[in-house]
């Protein structure tokens, strides 16, 4: 079942450029430049791209904050801007950089206020809150004013706040930005569990690709307002030729004639005492076996391709 649908979605911004002392010229800059995307119920989609690629703009069009310049968008079968308040009940939004909690009130009061705003039946509210309290470990700071919470605590509060009305879709705009390692783990763990139920569709933007690796089967990369990749992380590796590497420390350098079938020598360091091979068709086992017979191997390691590198290449490719 389709939950989110974008058809040739566009958003232009007018930028005024100063020309001369008083004159200004209006120039339109496309922030989102024709995106086609369909997300099914229960999917977890990572939406990434460099700064200014149009990630937040897309999210704002999906949540009813911004009106598209052209194209069509539906979320839960609704058109976001004209049907804003109906849609608001069915989606949850977490902005990493802004808060929807009441700054000066104890955290639990924000949750109560949201119950009234969304008119959630008390029993449903209590059940959802109880679940978040245990999974996100909210109890130690439930009575603390939000302004005194650490960023990690606040973000756990924000995620809870976005879920209390039982949304079908959860949009997260950089939910792990600025968090320490432990808080990131807590947030990711919770979202993974949420996604595993299959009831909630999740779409998140991030600059931390570990979020994607941990959470999202599907990765959408946008750049300059276009989708440049839509598929799994493995697809991305396959498409951009990222390979595993075998790194070996040797007691003596390899014979010059040595060649490893299905792999290429990528680097030789420390006077030939450290070599690394890029594995193409060879399996790790084959490569290790061949290497062991050819040279005195002291240590071996297998390096997985780094998604950061792939994405960095993707961003700079254009």
């Amino acid at each position, binding site marked *: 079942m389709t939950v989110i649908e974008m058809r040739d979605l566009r958003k232009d*911004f007018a930028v005024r450029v100063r020309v001369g002392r008083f004159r200004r010229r209006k120039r339109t800059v496309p922030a989102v430049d024709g995106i086609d995307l369909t997300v099914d119920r229960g999917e977890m989609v990572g939406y990434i791209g460099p700064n200014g690629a149009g990630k937040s*703009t897309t999210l704002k069009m999906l*949540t009813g904050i911004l009106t598209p310049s052209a194209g069509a968008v539906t979320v839960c079968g609704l058109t976001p*801007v004209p049907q804003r308040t109906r849609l608001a009940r069915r989606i949850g939004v977490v*902005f990493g950089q802004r*808060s*929807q909690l009441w700054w000066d009130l104890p955290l639990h*009061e924000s949750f109560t206020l949201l119950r*009234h705003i969304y008119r959630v039946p008390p029993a449903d509210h209590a059940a959802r809150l109880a679940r978040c309290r245990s999974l996100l470990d909210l109890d130690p700071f439930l009575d603390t004013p939000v302004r005194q919470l650490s960023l990690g605590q606040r973000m756990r509060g924000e995620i809870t706040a976005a879920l209390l009305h039982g949304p079908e879709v959860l949009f997260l705009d950089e939910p792990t930005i600025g968090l320490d390692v432990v808080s990131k783990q807590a947030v990711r763990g919770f979202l993974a569990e949420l996604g595993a139920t299959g009831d909630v569709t999740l779409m998140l933007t991030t600059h931390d690709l570990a979020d994607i690796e941990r959470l999202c089967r599907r990765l959408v990369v946008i750049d300059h307002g276009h989708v440049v990749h839509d598929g799994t992380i493995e697809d991305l590796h396959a498409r951009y030729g990222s390979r595993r590497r075998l790194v070996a420390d040797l007691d003596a350098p390899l014979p010059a004639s040595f060649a490893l079938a299905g792999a290429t020598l990528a680097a030789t360091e420390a006077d030939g005492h450290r070599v690394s091979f890029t594995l193409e068709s060879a399996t790790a086992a084959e490569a290790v076996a061949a290497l062991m017979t050819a040279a005195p191997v002291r240590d071996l390691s297998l390096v997985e391709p780094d998604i950061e590198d792939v994405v960095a290449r993707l961003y700079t490719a254009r």
Partner: protein
Amino acid sequence: MGDQARAYAHLIGGQFRSMVSYRLSFLVEMISHSLTVVLDISTVLVLFGAGRRVGGFTLEEALLVAGLSSVGFALADLLVGNVDHLKTYVRSGLMDVILVRPLGSLWQLLCMDLPFRKVLRVVLAGVVLAIAVRLNDLDWTPARVVLLVVTPLAGLVFFGAIFVLSASLAFWWVDSGEIGSAFTYGGRDFTTYPVPVYAAWFRAVFAYALGFGFVAYQPALTLLGRTDPLGLPAWAGYLSPLVALVAAAVAALAWRAGIRHYRSTGS
């Protein structure tokens, strides 16, 4: 509808609890805000002085105009005045947060930033109005009683509309703050005095074209049973609710257009 009203009431409650969490600054600000009423009224006292007439009005009569204007403005400033923080809301992202909630944007903003510290000012303005009413020895009829109650409420709606209109400018023009103040605070100052004290062109624009003359001056004339030295008929005193509703309708349109503009620029 009742459910929605309850949601807004809870928002107001949350705002109240937020404010009183800073007890001392709440008290200090409440007192300093009330002083503005004292200042407004003392300028009237100085200008009109005992026994002196300005523009054909005695001190007591002028005080009635000032009192009506003051209650209307204080109410509007309390309930709607903080809408002029719109720029801050846009910058802090509160505007986005509000747009993803299932309630109206303007009402949400007003409820979430209701300045309770301005309450004392409404009370003080009410005291001034009560004193002015006593001093004037009015000839009470049922219509005048209704008029005395309705005028401050119409003033609330009218000034509220002016606040919303001037704030809406910020959707197009981020640096519009001071232009808006000319109409909000300037409008309050204008309505504090009887209209005949102003130059003809000035009152043509402010009193009649923009409607500020109907906030306090015309109803005061009717309450006093005086004929308008500027020639408007007696029933003009009852026009204030109508003028207020027209202003509110214009303000509602401006706000909607502003929100639409915000959503198409995302600034």
